[in-house]
């Protein structure tokens, strides 16, 4: 148990961060090179103003027509992504780890806020799961990997919540929490979670094509 704890809290953290950061850079750079070779249009038509104009409309809640048409999924998706990013960065436990390891610190959120936001993430995952199982248009597209990805995202939050509340088996929960968090970080560049790194490029390119060439809005 002790060895396992040392492994997940030591070397695997490094591995996860290296895979996450290195992998993301690798994906972006290889794609940029490939685009240069095969998709010259991407560079020719990419237009900063229109790219950001489109990104802007798609990162603010209800900024696009489709979001307005679908208020439930829009609200859930925005809360989910927001909490998913904020909680791991600003939760006290994590901030303390940074302080202990590297002597750097930043603002942390109150425990209650962290609890609520964690529950929101888990709830959103349940919502996505139900949506995948019940909505024909989503079910049709769903593959086994979609459930795996949902599990990868939900796991650190479920186990983290478990450990933070010191429920029975918290030691195991803590180890699972670190392990699942590491899996999620490492998975981002190499799975469909890579939409995190590619979103600005795909959206920005479509925004440029619509805005700069076709003089139309794409939201």
């Amino acid at each position, binding site marked *: 148990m002790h060895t396992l704890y040392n492994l997940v809290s030591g070397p695997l953290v490094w591995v996860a961060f290296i895979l996450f950061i290195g992998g993301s850079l690798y994906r972006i750079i290889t794609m940029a090179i490939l685009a240069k070779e*095969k998709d010259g249009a991407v560079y020719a038509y990419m237009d900063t103003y229109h790219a950001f104009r489109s990104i802007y409309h798609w990162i603010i809640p209800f900024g696009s027509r489709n979001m307005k*048409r679908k208020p439930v999924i829009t609200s859930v998706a925005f809360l989910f992504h927001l909490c998913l990013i904020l909680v791991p960065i600003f939760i006290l436990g994590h901030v303390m780890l940074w302080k202990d390891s590297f002597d750097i610190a930043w603002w942390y959120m109150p425990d209650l806020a962290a609890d609520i936001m964690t529950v929101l993430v888990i709830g959103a995952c349940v919502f996505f799961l139900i949506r995948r199982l019940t909505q024909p*248009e989503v079910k049709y597209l769903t593959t086994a990997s979609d459930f795996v990805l949902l599990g990868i995202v939900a796991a650190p939050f479920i186990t983290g919540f478990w450990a933070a509340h010191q429920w029975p088996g918290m030691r195991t929960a803590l180890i699972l929490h670190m392990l699942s968090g590491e899996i999620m970080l490492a998975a981002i560049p190499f799975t469909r979670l890579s939409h995190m790194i*590619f979103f600005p490029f795909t959206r920005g390119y479509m925004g440029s094509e619509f805005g700069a060439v076709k003089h139309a809005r794409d939201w």
Partner: protein
Amino acid sequence: MTETVIRSRKIKEKKRVYPPRRPVPDLGLDKGAEKLTPERIESTIRSVLDNETGARLKVYVDTCAHCGLCSEACHFYWSHDGDPSYSPAGKVKQTISEIVKKKGKVDADFIRGAAEIAYTECNLCRRCSMYCPFGIDIAYMMLTVRRIAHLLGVVPQYIQDTAHSHSATMNQMWVKDDEWIDSLLWQEEEAAEEIPELRIPLEKEGADILYSVIGPEPKFRAQLIYQAAVIMHEAGVDWTMPATPGWDNSDMCMYTGDNEMMGRLKKVHFETAMRLKNKRIVMGECGHAFRSIFDMGNRWLAWKMPPIPVTHAIEFYAELFRDKKIKVKKKFEKPVTLHDPCNIVRGRGLHEMARYVVNEICTDFIEMHPNREHNFCCSAGGGVINTGPPFRNKRVEGNRIKAEQLFAAKSKGAQVVIAPCHNCHGGLEDIIHHYNLKMELKFLGDIIYEVMER
């Protein structure tokens, strides 16, 4: 107003089980698929994936989160009561993502099915890119499927015939060189009965404008050339038409996946305007031809933007009204509604200009909803109407939502639908008939001709 209308519109009854797809018999698809071998399929697909696609396709395939939010962008999805196999991502799943995943190891049946989906169930209207949170270009992915199907020779017969016409005659409708000139002289003669001094200038070097039409105009909509000539004459425009191939800017090769031919067609077209030293090309009310010269054909020829300015009819009419070059005698009084064609609205943002022109010539304009960039396609575009009679019912039944949209405009009083695009015209004509909407259909040019001072 717009928002409430759209938000209240829901797929009426989503079902648990949707009827299975039955392949529509088509000589081009069936015979083409019969000739395929696994080796040929694999090597063709690999060549397209390795040599013609790159980061875009990879990122699009990797990024799609299977969220299904693109579904309600598609008129086919709406019109099939939410059948997920008609959603944009559903069509991707059945075609290109399978092709990429299996690296080309798919069988002839699969290719036939994928070709039918890409050629007849997607109008490449790009509405889904406005509904996908990531802005994935699904039209591009469907075009990639068409490219593969073209190289494999699995293309619906009718549109392939049109593509053959393009390669043999440089126009869409097998119009021979002398027939083209004859048609213009004939229209000039007809128009001269009304305006004796009217001319259709041929081969006039240095004219400001090269006026370009598409194959169907000399073939069976010759009155449009007549009307255009009258408008040009009354506006006092310095214009000309070429007496050589290159007059037709339509392009079904762009839609079959025959990019090489698309390039040849646009090259002849641009070079004709350059030979005649025209300042710009003005074209009739056509959507796909505009896409071809403004967006796709020029790119194949490595022109970031067209090498010579291209003006769509809507822009041109707006210009004539703004500069008061044509005056309206008495505005058109029947209530009208306007269909926004994808290729000049999502493709060029001409929606406000179109409304300006409509308001200049009509007294009573009723919007249909959704409109502008969010308008539903006519389901004829993207070459779908050119796949011909075998797929007619599929096309018309696949766009019930458009009939509902037209009916809603009609119930507010609209009697005439203005569709400033040839394909939209064909598509809407079929929809109006099939759903018994009893609405009239007109080009902007029809109405301008009717109401202008002359």
